[in-house]
């Protein structure tokens, strides 16, 4: 039986690495970022437009990372995407409110 080439073995290893469940610290990291980003909704109306824009940007950056969570992390994906949606929409709402009041 011919031995697989080194490049094939590397590709297979990479494929397996991609398929494996996201390790726990990675999920915890996402949760920490979620907490940091969405922990300011209570005072969003007191933030500057630039600060709110930055938070919206971080929400948009977090979304695809949550979407990438595999089926074994389906619950976390569902819960945090829903919570992120509410938080992002509220920041957008706060921003439009600020712009309306101080055009």
């Amino acid at each position, binding site marked *: 039986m011919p031995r697989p080439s080194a490049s094939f073995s590397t590709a297979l290893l990479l494929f397996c690495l991609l398929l494996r469940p996201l390790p726990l610290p990675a999920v915890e990291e996402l949760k920490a970022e*979620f907490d940091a980003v969405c922990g300011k*909704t*209570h005072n969003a109306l007191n933030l500057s437009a630039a600060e709110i824009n930055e938070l919206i940007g971080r929400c948009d950056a977090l979304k695809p990372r949550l979407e990438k969570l595999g089926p074994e992390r389906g619950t976390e994906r569902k*819960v945090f995407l*829903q919570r992120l949606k509410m938080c992002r*929409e509220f920041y957008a*709402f706060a921003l439009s409110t600020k712009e309306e*009041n101080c055009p």
Partner: protein
Amino acid sequence: MKKSLFFTLFLLLLTGLALAQTGLKKRRPLPHEYGRVELNNFSEKAGRAPVVFDHWLHRAKFTCRLCHVDIGFAMQAGSTGIAAADNERGYYCGACHNGRTSFAACSTKDQPATGTCDRCHSAGKKVTRHYDFRAFTEKLPRGRFGNGIDWEQAEAEGSITPVDFLAGVSIKREALTPQKDFDLTAKVAGMPEIIFSHQKHTVWNGCELCHPEIFLGVKKGKTQYSMTEIYEGKYCGVCHSSVAFPLIDCQRCHIKPVR
């Protein structure tokens, strides 16, 4: 022959009337039934009875915000799609029903019969409720409609202290910045104006439960809506037709005398 024909027609008429009644008139829920939600995304498929969720018990202990923002329950019954696996991982019902904070949520079909499954999966079953509505609400201030409880008064006087933070789920936030109350002009002439209390609503709801999904604009007059739409379950009707005091309690909102 004539008699039996007459009797059959009479019976058909009665049946028709009975059906017409149920079709036309919606029975007003009893105080303990008000805010009750039945959830059956996966229950029957998994061989369990649908879940009967009573808002009155949960709202006496937790704020609306905690469950609908921090835990992530959608505002429309059944749209969250809660699965047993979600509860098992400590999300949704499992955030509290974990055997530590409260009795454990029933997770798998083969779970030993601990008796806890029936406490929620109880639709169509004769289950003795752990919390008796009458006994539980006995000392709470009375309301005219809905659960027959003035929940707002109960919270204000400290008869209930709804929890707004759940360790491991909620985010540690700064205290909420109070927003100003405002009045809304009623569309019908002679109808008292509405005083909308942001203060009272934020105690229960926080910000993002209402904005922007239910109320798009914060500027007075930006979100235009009518009582018809509210009765259809939109805007104020999202909560005030199902869980919070119902719309027939007019004077709770229309309180400012017409100038």
